[in-house]
């Protein structure tokens, strides 16, 4: 059981809407990025002298570039429908974690400097000057938003606090107040190619190791190709898939599916990372630069298709933004969507019947499924709206006999964030992460107690890492988180695979 310097929420059967307690999370702040992490991204190294002026200039600039920002800042009627929808508010009780209050931190400054009412009657309309205190609040509370968009589902105008947080982070970056975790990682992608800073040589070794493991286990020569020119499919996956648990078991699953489907595929050192932290910091330019590596890799390797591995926000950037940021992809095979999700691929193979699956292998588990926020509310899989909910479940059910869903108000587009999304998956925000997981943990514990669930499957590298870390705080076991393709990997029987009897373990 992990030790903590803060109170760990006790799980109740129901998640009550708490009474507000101002300031409970005012102390929560991630480390500020040092100049070495700021400058490579094109941001000032530290707080610039005329920061107020610069921040307001940037705000004006963004108001001209993003309709979302302009419409959202003008349209909120303070109806309060979003106030009890954020996992961070529900678990911390801090009113500034209510989505509308979080937006208001930016909106009050917008009103003061960009609207007539705020210029002439600031008190009346809740407008405020941009002071150092306001900036500190921004830094604190815009790093308590995982950009999960749960609030946007309930808002009558679809106001998405994630958009506001992204804009706020972009403004802060532009005056030299960046977040270390995100900005350091983006720098690593530029210099090394992935978030974890895993160089090409190490990656090749890791993949060779995986080939040996799979061979030892199955007796089948399943390849994990890297930089293979002329392969059909470029696979872009979060770098955690290369060694973190349970992520890597998912990667093994992808490889087995490709092997069984008989298609040629390859990973790439240039694009050895699906994640795109440029989104978290709201920087179009950085997000674009990170995305262009995928295009470059696809061109270099001469592939026909692009498939993304299990990752939440990465799938958002891939599904919703890649065509915009790095398209057009007219050099790829037009018979397939660009990009495709690995689950779409596997699902299609299951439909075609190319995979030989033995569900009973997973009979020691009762599964439930965590819809990742960005996949659920910002993307789609397949042709029909809602495919992002159906396809993962269909795949799980094809490889497992025991599956139950969590409470309806915690799944599909009402899913709760794992608590570590949006660039918050860092140890300096541990308190926030543990608390923010409470709504999901409540729902999980209920199905564990009532339906005998033993494992929760996830399709996001951040969710997997976050849950692995956070489950022990709630008295659960870190191994209870599994990758969906880990389940596929268990169930798949490859041609020529050693049978149960001759397995040595």
């Amino acid at each position, binding site marked *: 059981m992990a030790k903590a310097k803060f109170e760990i929420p006790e799980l109740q059967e129901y998640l009550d809407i708490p009474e*507000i307690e101002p300031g409970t999370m005012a102390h929560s702040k991630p480390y500020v990025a040092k100049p070495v992490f700021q400058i490579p991204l094109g941001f000032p190294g530290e707080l610039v002298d005329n920061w107020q002026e610069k921040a307001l200039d940037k705000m004006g600039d963004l108001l001209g570039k993003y309709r979302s920002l302009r419409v959202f800042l003008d*349209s909120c009627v303070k109806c*309060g429908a979003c106030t009890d929808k954020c996992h961070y508010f529900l678990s911390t009780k801090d009113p500034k974690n209510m989505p509308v209050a979080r937006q208001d931190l930016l909106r009050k400054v917008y009103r003061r400097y960009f609207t007539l009412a705020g210029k002439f009657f600031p008190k009346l309309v809740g407008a405020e000057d941009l002071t150092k205190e306001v900036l500190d609040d921004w830094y604190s509370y815009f790093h308590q938003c995982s950009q999960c968009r749960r609030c946007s589902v309930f808002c009558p105008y679809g106001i998405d606090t994630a958009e506001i947080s992204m804009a706020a982070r972009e403004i802060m970056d532009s005056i030299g107040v960046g977040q270390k975790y995100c900005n350091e990682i983006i720098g690593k992608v530029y210099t090394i190619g992935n978030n974890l800073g895993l160089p090409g040589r190490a990656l090749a070794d890791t993949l060779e190791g995986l080939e040996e493991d799979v061979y030892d286990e199955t007796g089948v020569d399943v390849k994990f190709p890297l930089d293979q020119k002329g392969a059909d499919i470029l696979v872009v996956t979060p770098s955690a898939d290369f060694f973190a648990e349970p992520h890597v078991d998912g990667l093994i699953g992808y490889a087995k599916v490709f092997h069984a489907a008989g298609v040629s595929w390859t990973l790439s050192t240039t694009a050895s990372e699906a994640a795109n932290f440029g989104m978290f910091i709201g920087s179009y330019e950085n997000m674009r630069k990170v995305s262009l590596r995928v295009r470059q890799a696809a061109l270099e390797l001469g592939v026909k298709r692009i498939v993304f591995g299990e990752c939440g926000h990465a799938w958002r950037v891939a599904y919703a*933004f890649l065509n915009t940021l790095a398209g057009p992809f007219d050099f790829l095979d037009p018979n397939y969507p660009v990009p495709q999700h690995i689950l779409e691929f596997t699902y299609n193979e299951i439909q075609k019947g190319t995979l030989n699956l033995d569900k009973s292998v997973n009979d020691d588990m009762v599964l439930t499924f965590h819809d990742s926020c960005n996949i659920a509310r910002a993307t789609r899989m397949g042709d029909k709206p809602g495919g992002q909910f159906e396809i993962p479940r269909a795949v799980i059910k094809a490889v497992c006999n025991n599956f139950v869903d969590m409470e309806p108000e915690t799944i599909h587009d009402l899913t709760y964030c794992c608590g570590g999304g949006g660039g918050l998956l860092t140890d300096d925000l541990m308190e926030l992460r543990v608390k923010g997981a409470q709504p999901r943990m409540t729902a999980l514990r209920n199905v564990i107690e009532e339906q005998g669930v033993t494992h929760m499957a996830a399709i996001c590298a951040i969710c997997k890492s976050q849950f692995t870390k956070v489950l022990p705080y709630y008295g659960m076991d870190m191994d209870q988180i599994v990758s969906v393709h880990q389940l596929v990997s268990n169930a798949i029987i490859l041609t020529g695979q050693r049978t149960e009897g001759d397995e040595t373990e």
Partner: protein
Amino acid sequence: MSFLTIAFALLFYAATAILLAGLAYKIFRFAKTPSPLKIATTPAPVTETGVVLRMFREVVFFESLFRGSKWTWTFGWVFHMGLLVVLIRHLRYVTDPVWGPIALIQPFGVYAGFAMVAGLGGLWARRFLVDRVRYISAPSDHLILILLILIGVSGLTMKFIAHTDVVAVKQFFMGLMTFSWSPLPADFFLVIHLLLVAFLMIIFPYSKLLHAPGVFFSPTRNQVDNPREKRHIAAWARKLEEQ
């Protein structure tokens, strides 16, 4: 011509000009600002028709709000539907002859006034009773509710207690439109009603009442979910590609 008539004539010209110019400007800004990325809240419609239907459900039924808060939805929807009927009923002051369907709803239309005020009352109560909503309310959020309640109450007072000469009121407003002014009845509740209405018109483009045009421009609600099929790119983003 009385001072009152002249003052109100000028006030309504000014208020109308501010309302129309202000709204036109705001809508122009909304429309002109690009949406560089596809950010529809999914599951989202994959066709234009689907988007029109989604927007229709939002504007007419407040679909998202219904999922979010049943109480707010109830009060809010009753208020807005009441408001809508009241406003349609009011068209009789500015049209001649009055269009058939509008004449038809007149009798039971009066109840809409009560519905509107009741809904507003419920919404206002929430601002005191729910601690979360209290926290996010600025003075202006209270004032706008008070303003609308007073408009409603003064109107209802004229309807049921202190009647005014509605024919004269109509002549006054028809006169404004044809620039041949006729006198406005000097009744207390009418003066209050019109003063507050003029104020509402003036603040409309500078307040959260912008939610009315805003909802149509909300990218999370008005985008088609087809980013893989169709490349979406803003002009300023395209410039980055030319570098």
